[in-house]
Each structure stands twice: as C-alpha cells, then as structure tokens.
C-alpha cells in the first residue's frame, strides 16, 4: 500500500486568527513516482571520479624521487612557473572545454515567458517586470545551486547501469521575490527554494511542491542588505491557509510552477555558461601568456 502523504508530515504548526481548523508544515512525504522535470538539463559530464583513479588501494606507489614536478620544464622568460603538470592540466582543460561546449544546447540563454527582463551581475541574475505599477523582481545566484549528486557514489558493479542513464545537472537556486508597490516604503520579500526531493534525490516516494516559500518579510525599499531586525515569517510553522494565500499572491504576479520550471532551465543554462567561462579563464591562467 502507498505511504500516505499526511502520515509523514508532523510538526508544530501555528494557527492564525483567520482559521482554527488547519495548519501547515513542510516538508512532507507522499506516495508517487519520481517527478519528470521538464526543465532542460544537460548530461552529467563533470568527471570527478577521474581525480581519484589511483591510490593506496590500487597498490600503486608514486616514485617520489624520480618525479619532475618540482622542476619547471619549460622556460619562456615570462617570469611564471611552468611545469609538466601545468602542461597536462592545460591539455585536460582543452578537452574538458571542448566536451562542455559540445553538450551546450544554446549559446544564448533561454527566455522566460511573461515579459521578464534579465540583468546579470557576475553569478547573480535578476529578473524583473512591472505589472500595473507594481514592480516584481526575482534574484538568484547560480553559485552552489547544483544539489549534490548521489549517483556518483555507485560502486563499480553498478557503474554500467549508471552510465546508461546519465544523471543530469540541474541548477535549482534559492530565489528571492521582491514585490514593490508604488509609494510604499517597504517591499514584501519572499525567500523561495526548490525542495530537494523534487530533484529526484528522494527514494521516489517523497514529493513536494515544485517550489516553496521559506520565509516572508518586509524589507526597506531599495536596501541591498537584508535587514535582520524586520519580522520574518517562517513557513515551517505557518497556518496552511495563509501559506496558500501567499502562494496565490505570487501566482497572480507570475511566480507559479511554470515560472519555477523556466527559472530552473535559465539557471541551468547560466551555470553551464559560467562553468565554461571559468574553465577558459583557468586554462588561460595555467598556460603561458
């Protein structure tokens, strides 16, 4: 029999004055299948296991005294240190960049539907639009936005099966929605996230909404720094009806499941673009100028 959704949820919850019957708690478990995310994703190609191919368990011992790593093998007069290792590193990066560019779907970033304008500041992206004088902005940072991938931990025996279905890298950043009304001194700010089990890391039975609100607070308009002294509503212990109204409020402003899915797609593309750019910078840094 299926495991029930409601059985797995248990937390102290807070009832607002608006209702006395129900309350909400996150996260929950429910009986279904793995969510097929429609966000465009790319195959997992960042080969971390290559870094750990030999060691004590293999019986191999490095011949320390015959190693050349301490001696620069190339001298070009630029004043920098060049080693055989640097050369191998450069060659590796060249191959890696080539592979990553091969799987890059588009050079241009995917467009968000709904008239959102994208502005980039390093790894931080800001989407904004104005609806009837109300300004809505969504900010996210692609750094640390890829959840850890457990597929990598498969042992050798399972490696072939894992290769058949390559895990895909999907960037699922936390994102902050800011709603600013005309002539208001404060913006209403929603701290949102993609619950992890939706990313296919659960046991196949855990499931949450595609995105969820974690916190809500008023912040002074235009302030860059988060004001810790503003009251912050945490949704872990929130009345469920109030949470639903907050979600409907966001949906009316274009922040719904479709938006969240497109944001994942955009963030994945930006992250990949930045990764390739980083590899290129690294290659330029390593090689002789």
């Amino acid at each position, binding site marked *: *029999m*299926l495991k*029930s*959704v*409601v*059985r797995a*949820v*248990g937390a*102290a*919850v*807070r*009832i607002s004055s608006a209702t006395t*019957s*129900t*309350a*909400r*708690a996150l996260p*929950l478990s*429910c*009986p*279904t*299948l793995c*969510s*097929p995310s*429609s966000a465009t994703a790319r195959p997992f190609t960042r080969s971390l296991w290559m870094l750990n191919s030999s060691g004590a368990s293999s019986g191999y011992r490095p011949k320390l005294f015959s190693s050349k790593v301490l001696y620069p093998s190339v001298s070009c007069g630029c004043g920098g240190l060049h080693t055989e290792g640097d050369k191998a590193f450069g060659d590796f990066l060249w191959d890696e960049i080539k592979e990553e560019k091969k799987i890059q779907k588009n050079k241009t970033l995917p467009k968000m539907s709904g008239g959102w304008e994208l502005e980039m500041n390093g790894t931080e992206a800001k989407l904004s639009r104005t609806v009837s004088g109300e300004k809505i902005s969504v900010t996210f940072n692609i750094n640390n936005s890829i959840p850890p991938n457990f597929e990598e931990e498969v042992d050798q025996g399972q490696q072939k099966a894992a290769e058949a279905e390559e895990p895909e890298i999907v960037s699922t950043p936390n994102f902050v929605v800011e709603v600013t009304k005309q002539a208001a001194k404060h913006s209403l700010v929603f701290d949102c996230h993609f619950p992890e089990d939706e990313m296919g890391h659960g046991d196949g039975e855990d*499931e*949450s*909404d*595609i995105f969820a609100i974690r916190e809500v607070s008023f912040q002074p308009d235009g302030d860059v720094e988060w004001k810790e002294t503003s009251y912050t509503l945490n949704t872990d*212990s929130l009345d*469920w*009806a109030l949470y*639903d*109204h907050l*979600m*409907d409020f966001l*949906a009316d402003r274009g922040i*719904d*499941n*479709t938006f969240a*899915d497109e944001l994942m797609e955009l963030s994945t593309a930006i992250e990949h673009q930045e990764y390739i750019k980083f590899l290129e910078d690294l290659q330029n840094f390593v090689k002789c100028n």
Partner: protein
Amino acid sequence: MWSFTMGVVLRNLQKVVPLRRARLRKDVNTLRHILGIQKFDLGIICVDNQRIQQINNIYRKKNVPTDVLSFPFYEDIRPGKLPCPLNRDELNLGDIFLGVEFVMKQCQEESLDLHGALTVVTAHGICHLLGYRHETEEEWTEMLQRESYILNEFNRLTGSHLEPLMKKFNQDR
C-alpha cells in the same frame, strides 16, 4: 496559538492548470466539515495527465489519464462508518490524487467552473476514503446517495449548484 493538527496537506505538482490553492483548500475544508471528518488528516495532490496516467497504470492497470484516484489509509471500513484511530498517527484518511488537467479539459468541453468540478471529484474521492465503492449497482446507489447529500449540503452552505460525479452506474471510475 500553537497546534499539532495537520488537516489538509495540499500539493500542486503540475504546471498545466493554474490553481487557486486557497479556494481549493477552503472547498475541501467545507467538505470535511459536512462529513464531520475535521479531526482526520487528508492529502490532496494535484497532478497532470501524464502523472495520473502513470499512477492509474501502476495501481489499477489502466494506462489512461483520469480525474481522481483515492488511496485510503483504512482499506476495510464499512461505508459511512468513521474509522476508530488508536493514536494520533491513525487520524488519517489517506490521499486523493486529483487529475486537474483531465478535469480542466472536461470543464472546457462542458463550460463548467474548474473549482466547482474539483469539489465534485474531491467529494467522490473522500467517499472512497470512507469505504464507499461502486463495483456493484447496490454499492453505486449507496455511494451516489452519500455524494448527493454532501453536495446538497455544500450547495446550501456556499450557494453553489454542484451535482454528483456518477450519474449512472459505472464500474470503471
């Protein structure tokens, strides 16, 4: 004020149909009130055609999308008799999967209000969680009577004009 009750756990796992979560919860709570099952927890999971077809195929061997699938916590209760839970964990009726995309298409064809239709299919799903079946004509009559009562009460309380899902005997639903 703090509480340990959960009530209705609502999940929207699809992006095809724009749902009003607050409205759906309010309607489900009205149904719970009519049936006197407020102390029981209940899961409502909104899914698209693809997902409900998968679930329908796995659990009922029917590889087609549908409007509602119920997964009772209590599998052998007599229709209309509320379960007698022994502890807090058993204050649970189970889960209802709403095929909101399927329901929306039916509403478009018949020019019906989506949330009204979702109330009707949820009432049907709750009846299944409470032990009602419609495998025989006798069971169907019993279930239809219960659904009619629930929706009449709902109409009286909200001013709606909703009608039961199963107007004629149908084993498959």
